[in-house]
């Protein structure tokens, strides 16, 4: 177990740095898209008008059906219906057959737990991301997607943004996506042609603050899908 943890920690440390860089600060807006490497993102919208991944490392989907159609059979899906509200330690998922193994937690440098709603994932501390990660010793996956939105102190959906960062196992950032959310139905999926190390979801505070409203936002996630790109 120790042998598998160290490389994972190293990778996730990179991811944490990358995630911070992509979201600037909690009081600021997300990094402008033009800062990302050219050609990194190939967006596929609900219309399905762009169905060819070509040479792009990561394709972004905003529609769950289109995303699932791009996956090979045998993907893992979690609706977190077994999750009880409140704090929790990292949640480890494996299929027992060495096909999938990943962990949902707050991050390497985050010393605080998850804080979940009834059937969905969020964080205890407002500055912590939701991290979904695997290690290089685990079976690789090349596709990951989920419903993501910001929640308030009481776990209620609220206005704002979420920032998703996909870290590849080679240490590069595969994608960074800022979502102006409208609620728990917002979906983002990522399909790559190389192994993905993890997905990090952050929710920056709203800026400027709205009078009478807390500017704090917590990242929130549900209906996670992890799999491989269709051949």
């Amino acid at each position, binding site marked *: 177990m120790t042998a598998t943890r160290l490389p994972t920690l190293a990778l996730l440390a990179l991811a944490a740095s990358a995630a911070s860089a992509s979201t600037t600060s909690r009081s600021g807006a997300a990094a402008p898209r033009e800062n990302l490497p050219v050609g990194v993102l190939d967006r596929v919208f609900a219309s399905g008008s762009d169905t060819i991944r070509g040479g792009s490392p990561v394709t972004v989907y905003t529609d769950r059906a289109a995303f699932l159609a791009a996956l090979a059979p045998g993907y893992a899906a979690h609706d977190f219906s077994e999750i009880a509200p409140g704090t929790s330690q990292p949640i480890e998922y494996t299929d027992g057959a060495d096909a999938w193994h990943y962990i949902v937690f707050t991050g390497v440098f985050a010393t605080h737990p998850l804080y979940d709603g009834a059937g969905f994932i969020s964080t205890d501390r407002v500055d912590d991301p939701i991290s979904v990660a695997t290690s290089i010793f685990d079976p690789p996956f090349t596709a990951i997607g989920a419903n993501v939105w910001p929640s308030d102190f*009481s776990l209620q959906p609220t206005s704002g943004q979420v920032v998703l960062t996909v870290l590849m196992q080679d240490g590069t950032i595969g994608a960074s996506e800022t979502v102006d959310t409208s609620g728990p139905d917002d979906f983002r999926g990522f399909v790559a042609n190389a192994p993905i190390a993890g997905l990090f979801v952050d929710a920056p505070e709203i800026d400027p603050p709205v009078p009478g409203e807390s500017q704090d936002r917590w990242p929130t996630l549900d209906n996670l899908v992890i799999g491989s790109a269709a051949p």
Partner: protein
Amino acid sequence: MIASNLLRATTFAGVLACAFVPLAHADIALDGTSTPTTYARGRVNSFLLDLHVVSDAFAGVDALTFELPPGVTLSAVRKRNTFTFCSDVHPLVDGMGTGTGGWYQLGWPALDGCGSFAGSPDPGEEQIVIVDLDVPAAYSGDLPLTVHALGDGNGDPPNEADLVLTLADEGAPPQPVVATASKLALAVDGGVANVQVLAIGNTGAGTLAYTITTAASDGVTPPDCGVPVTQPWLAVAPMSGTVAAGAHDDVALTFDTGTLAAGDYGATLCIASNDAAQPMRVIPLGLHVNATPCAAADRVFANGFEDDADGRCSQALRTFDDRDAFLATVAPGYETNAFTALRTGYVHGPLHFGNAYPYAVTAGPGYDIGDFYLFDGAGELSTVSPGDTSRLTITFTGTSVTAIGGNVWGQMFQNPTVIEMNMQPPTTIRIELDDGTVETFVATSQQDFRGFVSTRPIHAITFGTPLPGDDGEYVWGVFDNLVVGNAR
């Protein structure tokens, strides 16, 4: 002879063997006591556990958890001191609001490391935790509180230890207990007679017998109930009575301002009873005669009389220092909040709570990093820092509220000069309602309670601890177990 020598040799060999067999160093052992050792039904009870977590192997505890019988839940867990924990500065607090929970090592991806709590306290070092248990009204009999210490596995077995503390059921008090408001203030126009009903309840057993007299009050000198003084503007009826267990009497207090000039008047209600714990309840009465008549031009009120009995041109505020007495005056449907299992850390307000009676809580002063700091497992709201300007304000944002109460006290979450945390030193609490009413008292524990029942809507209430303690340190003012609703 041979047998004797053989016996000696065998004994010597045994002693020798014992001398060279490594002694077992048990990973963990647990002992301790609880204060108090009894619980009350239908409320959040707080217990101070003096634990002795000892590891012969100088190891630590990966989890220190509590298990409760069905129906009873954990409301909060707090450490009184550091337990000289090692690497795991922020152990995970989990299970609040459920029957099993406590501190776990956050360790990722699994429990490991040296543990969150040291098993080798320094000589004389206390290992005290405070556990709040929410006991439903329907629970009765002994309440076993199981404390479970999970060692870190660095010593010999046993690697786990349990301590069962049996908390006894207080049940109903065996003698009469008088339950009533601790203060009543009335603001009214001159030239009217205003009747306020004061409920005198019996929350104990047997029959409560009471007699009421009145004494003088100048607001400064402690009232002397041994010297009855009749105020011409105050009539009390009945002056005596009996109350069965669980029942209450309505005593009519008639304030006649017919001959009074505008200004403030005071009196003291002295309730002598067979309540052994409080044979004399002293209740300050405040009367303010408005200088400006009520805005209503037509003094015939909705009740068809001109006595202001419907209170349209008056405001009466009852203050309570006893939760039972307060709840007896609140209409069914009220909401409670123990602020259990909240998110933690620095948080910006306002924070919204309540369903039927929604309210927003703000904290001041605010900082860029946040307005609140919410401690893991604390189960209460608290400002970022204490001080003379620190305050928590509840603003009601929906349905009209005329009754609000809760436990209010001073909590020293941390002190730069001592190792102890979560102490509850005597603290001056200042509570201010939006109508300008100020209630000040010295709280000595989290059991201290204040409740307010008004004849007019309460829009906001602010809590603060504006004075430093004897050591010059300010204490956080906190509230918990809030009750929000309307008067009966």
